[in-house]
């Protein structure tokens, strides 16, 4: 039987941003959640990947395997991020090689234990947590390219009333015509390409609506963290200036080419 809860915190894409993770965990405690889940991609982009793992362990966070975690666990040659642009892949490779070098063997063993999905009960709702999509770990589910009927089919195929994913780096939620819900929980690792330095996590709660039934409510929570210290650590580690610029300005400088028109048009670069 999957665990049964009423209120949960969800986040994805930590990308080694241990400062944002600490801040998000502290904030989620304020919400009085029953459980906290990470939807994968612990490493990438940021400095000192090993600092993330003790934070997850001491806070009892359950983790779904992301494509980055899978690559590290299986010692693959690349991060399987699914980029199609050579420049994006160039930076992805720099980031991946740094993360491989700086992740301990013990933490890589931990990554091998991660499930591809987690199921739970949220009030009366069947919830499925996965990284990209339930059907493929590195599938991008963007708000502007994911039709309702496609999401309804995912809910049918995977027998879920609520599906939560990450992987794109941009949060969104959709209440489907059937009453089911799909939410992309966003990421903690880097800002949302909106010119601010904040990152986001998500609270999902089953709230009673009478007659013994409940409805699922989503709150996206901004996280303000010490991004300047993170940027300094990235500099000290010799990580690319393009990554640091994103942390300091809130605009994506890499991994842009997978963005659909609407999402890309909102950005600066």
């Amino acid at each position, binding site marked *: 039987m999957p665990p049964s809860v009423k209120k949960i915190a969800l986040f994805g894409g930590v990308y080694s941003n241990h400062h944002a993770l600490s801040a998000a965990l502290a904030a989620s405690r304020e919400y009085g959640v029953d459980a906290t889940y990470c939807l994968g991609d612990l490493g990438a982009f940021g400095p000192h990947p090993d600092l993330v793992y003790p934070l997850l362990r001491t806070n009892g966070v359950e983790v779904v395997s992301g494509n980055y975690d899978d690559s590290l666990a299986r010692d693959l040659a690349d991060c*399987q991020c*699914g980029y*199609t*642009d*050579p*420049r994006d892949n*160039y930076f992805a490779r720099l980031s991946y090689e740094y993360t491989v070098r700086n992740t301990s063997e013990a933490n890589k063993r931990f990554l091998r234990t991660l499930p591809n999905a987690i199921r739970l009960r949220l009030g009366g709702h069947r919830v499925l947590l996965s990284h990209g999509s339930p*059907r*493929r770990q*590195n*599938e*991008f589910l*963007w*708000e*502007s*390219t*994911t*039709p309702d*009927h*496609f999401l*309804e*089919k*995912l809910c049918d195929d995977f027998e879920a009333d609520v599906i939560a994913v990450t992987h794109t780096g941009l949060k969104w939620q959709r209440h489907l015509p059937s009453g089911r819900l799909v939410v992309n929980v966003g990421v903690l690792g880097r800002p949302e390409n909106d010119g601010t330095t904040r990152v986001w996590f998500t609270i999902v709660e089953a709230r009673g609506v009478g007659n013994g039934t409940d409805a699922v409510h989503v709150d996206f929570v901004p996280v303000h963290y010490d991004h300047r210290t993170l940027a300094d650590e990235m500099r000290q580690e010799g990580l690319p200036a393009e990554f640091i610029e994103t942390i300091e300005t809130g605009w994506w400088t890499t991994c*842009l*080419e*997978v963005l*659909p*028109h*609407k*999402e*890309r*048009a909102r950005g600066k*670069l």
Partner: protein
Amino acid sequence: MSDGVQTTPSNESDAPRVALKAFDELWFQVGGTLCNLSCNHCFISCHPLNDTFGFLDLATVKRYLEESATLGVKEYYFTGGEPFLNREMTAILRETLRYGPATVLTNATVFREASVRELRAVSDSSRYSLEIRVSIDGYSPETNDPIRGQGTFDGAMRGVRMLVEVGFLPIITTTQTWPDDKSEDVFKNFVETLKNAGYERPRLKILPTLYLGMEETRSRPYSDTERVTPEMMVDYDESLLLCSRGRIVTDRGVAVCPILIEAPDALLGQSLGEATDPFAIGHGACSTCYQYGAICSNSNSLRTRGQPGRILTRPPES
């Protein structure tokens, strides 16, 4: 190869069969084979008088959109011919964007300012993305016009400027007709040209040559040895092939993919539901798709092989 005829598989019984694993992409041959241009590399030999395939009307598109929703289709593509010769094209896009994201492949030479503004309004009215892909086969009149026709470079760039001015970020699609070692230079020249035209964030998709249609005359046909064999499918990720995740609607019915619409075995049924059987990838063009993967789609979210077929913004090692 001339209109309506296409190389049949060299040994169809040996050709690997690819199952439609997920109906993610639905294409529409909305412009038929009618085009205002007569490019000398066109793999289905489109030109102003080629009515081998006709336009799709709005009612037909609507019917397939409705069926697609029951199958969970993820994205929609429109091609031709030149889609915008179809007078219902804007209405078709408006309807499609009620269902999901749409991409239209155009030569951008038939745009008017008012029609581009209307397209922008259609795009703004939907939660889903509308992508415009513009075919240009050289970064200058000297490199483009010998392939696409006199004056077509200037005409297409006019169209690109109009699109950019109203806020589109068109994907410039170019067929590789140059040697691999020239790719970086070609790319840089393209980007410079587009930036000079006011397109600050150009996206460029490079397609491999398909030795079909007019291209057979321009260069060569596929040889009998250019085929996908069962041995080649061992450990191969079939999701790289469009036939594993999509189909195309033509005015004759539903065919396997945009490249093979003229092939005798390409027509699979009259409804989407009838067109879901596995397809034997025994054509020469299947070997190009095998080699490069996802050559028709905007991007490949799985993995990529080879250079063409990807959206680029800068040279690989910049």
